[in-house]
């Protein structure tokens, strides 16, 4: 329904968006996710028609939007800095887009009331935006965008400035409203949880380039490159520089700067065989895939030193060091650890991601998949 076809946007010499190709089906919730300065907001503004692409085209319902001014695109947008009409009351702010579309005043009243109820801003309807808190303003901005029926809703960090509790609630509300309206949504965020929780599909972008476009499951479990892998997940994935070695006919990964070996199983072997050997291998592993022992045993063979302990209540996140690399693992809060204690890790074959020159070679075996293989074998 909405399609970006290799869109590029340059501001002078800086390239904000580069060869971006995206699409969004009807009623789909697409999240554009990336770090600050990645070109997320620029992408939304391109879609809205506020700025024009330097190259490439944007299509809505199969028609190119070139030359169509923003007011004729039937899109609705939440701006990151709210962009509230400060000379109007909250009521008039919410009614503003409806009035442009000649909605009857009785219906305007009803819709504003309903929206205010949902967003819990009903008590402030007669106030001006200047007399609202940041969170309240953001809700007004969200309400103004969602109040009318648009083809596409463009949401630029619409709930990012709320406090944690309210954000959590608004996340749920937002998903519910959009589902109820059967809205087509392009949502920009830098919050990975928000991206995962809201989206049907996530477009991860960095430096104006699309890194990966897929369902939350694909993004999390099958990151196509190191950037996506490192940017998605909490705690972030840990990486180890490794060298591919073969000793006595057995292949293994040697962790650079130490003589620690990681085992290579059939799973990784077949992935490596299919491609040209890269210059540099890196192993990426999520904290939940690593098991920890406090004494060395047959599987827990990697000694590491505890560097930082973060307590989260239900679990602790422990950062350990292997040479120059840091590995994050999850431990039970019942185990008392101290900084500089030595613990032993097990990073098994089939539990880590393998990247060659930044590109994914293979991913961990899914638990369900593993089970199927065990049963099958």
């Amino acid at each position, binding site marked *: 329904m909405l399609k970006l076809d290799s869109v590029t946007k340059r501001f002078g010499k800086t390239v904000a968006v580069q060869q971006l190709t995206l699409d969004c089906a009807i009623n789909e919730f697409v999240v554009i996710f990336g770090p600050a300065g990645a070109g997320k907001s620029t992408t939304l503004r391109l879609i809205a028609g506020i700025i024009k692409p330097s190259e490439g085209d944007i299509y809505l319902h199969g028609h190119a939007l070139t030359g169509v001014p*923003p007011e004729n695109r039937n899109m609705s947008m939440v701006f990151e800095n709210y*962009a509230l009409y400060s000379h109007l009351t909250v009521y008039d702010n919410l009614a503003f887009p409806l009035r442009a579309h000649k909605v009857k005043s009785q219906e305007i009243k009803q819709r504003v009331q309903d929206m205010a109820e949902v967003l819990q801003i009903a008590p402030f309807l007669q106030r001006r935006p200047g007399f609202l808190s940041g969170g309240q303003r953001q809700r007004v901005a969200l309400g103004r965008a969602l109040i009318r029926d648009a083809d596409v809703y463009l949401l630029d960090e619409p709930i990012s400035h709320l406090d944690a509790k309210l954000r959590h609630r608004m996340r749920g509300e937002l998903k519910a409203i959009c589902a109820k309206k059967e809205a087509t949504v392009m949502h920009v965020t830098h919050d990975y949880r928000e991206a995962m929780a809201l989206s049907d599909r996530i477009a991860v972008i960095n430096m104006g380039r699309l890194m990966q476009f897929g369902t939350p499951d694909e993004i999390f479990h099958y990151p196509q490159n190191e950037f996506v892998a490192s940017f998605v997940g909490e705690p972030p994935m840990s990486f180890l520089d490794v060298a591919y070695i073969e000793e006595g006919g057995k292949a293994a990964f040697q962790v650079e700067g130490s003589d620690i070996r990681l085992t290579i199983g059939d799973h990784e072997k077949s992935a490596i065989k299919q491609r040209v050997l890269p210059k540099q291998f890196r192993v990426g592993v999520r904290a939940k895939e690593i098991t920890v022992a406090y004494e060395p045993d047959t599987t827990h063979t990697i000694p590491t030193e505890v560097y930082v302990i973060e307590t989260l209540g239900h679990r602790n996140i422990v950062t350990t060091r292997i040479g120059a690399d840091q590995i994050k693992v999850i431990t039970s809060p019942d185990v008392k650890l101290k900084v500089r204690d030595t613990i032993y890790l097990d990073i098994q074959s089939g539990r880590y991601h393998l990247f060659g020159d930044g590109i994914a070679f293979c991913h961990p075996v899914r638990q369900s998949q593993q089970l199927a293989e065990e049963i099958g074998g």
Partner: protein
Amino acid sequence: METQRISFGLFFRHFLILIILIVFLFPIYWMITTSFKSSEDILTRPPKFVFEPTLDNYRFAFEEADFTKFIRNTIIVAGLSTILVVTFGSIASYSFARWNPGDGHIMFFILTTRMMPAIAVIMPFFLIFRDLGKTDIGNRFYLGLDQPGALVVAYTVFNLPFAIWLMHSFFQDIPMELEDSARLDGYSRLQVFFRVVLPLAAPGIAVTAIFSLLFAWNEFLFAFVLTRDDARTITVGVSSFQTQQGILWGPLTAAAVVCVVPMLVVALFLQRYMVRGLTFGAVRG
């Protein structure tokens, strides 16, 4: 002890304010009282602070010197030129604030037109209007010498650069996102200008209008050179009491009071629009 010291400081501050007020307001006080004095009371020495008020001076100004006409002329000229200045100024200034045509060079060029003193351009103006008055268009729009149109044009030309610069920052302060947002809400560029930009720039426009009105109201040189009788304005009227027989202090001060009061009223009325920060709360931060 502490409270005493504060109250002394407070007393001293108020005392200082009082002195300053007396220094600044005394001429105005003297002007107003003089306008109500009879001609004998005006020139007595020592000056009289208690006297029997009379309206003779006002009667003289309005009946003998035709001040009604001068006031009417001034209202027409100042009002029209202010309307023109605000209309053209806001459009020009908005476009400079948003698109900056000429990369600042045109903007600077506009400022340079204010760098010459009025006296330097008064002769060209005189010649232009003298010749314009002989043409059809000049006649239709009263652009000849001693006609109000000429003054309106002169004041507009002289005030526009100033107005553009003054309003520029007000328009710049309006976040661009507000306009983008309004357009996405379904309003055309022109509707956005009238429904979002102008209301938000209202304080700036009010300030500009006041300055432009004050300038046109108080302007003397152009009015003195370009008018003789029919289009004569109030400031020239006041100066006409400086006659060869001497200065008619009574009618002069009466005329001056009439000249000052309307501007005071307008300034007080527009003051509430002059508060800064209408855009307060529009964007984060």
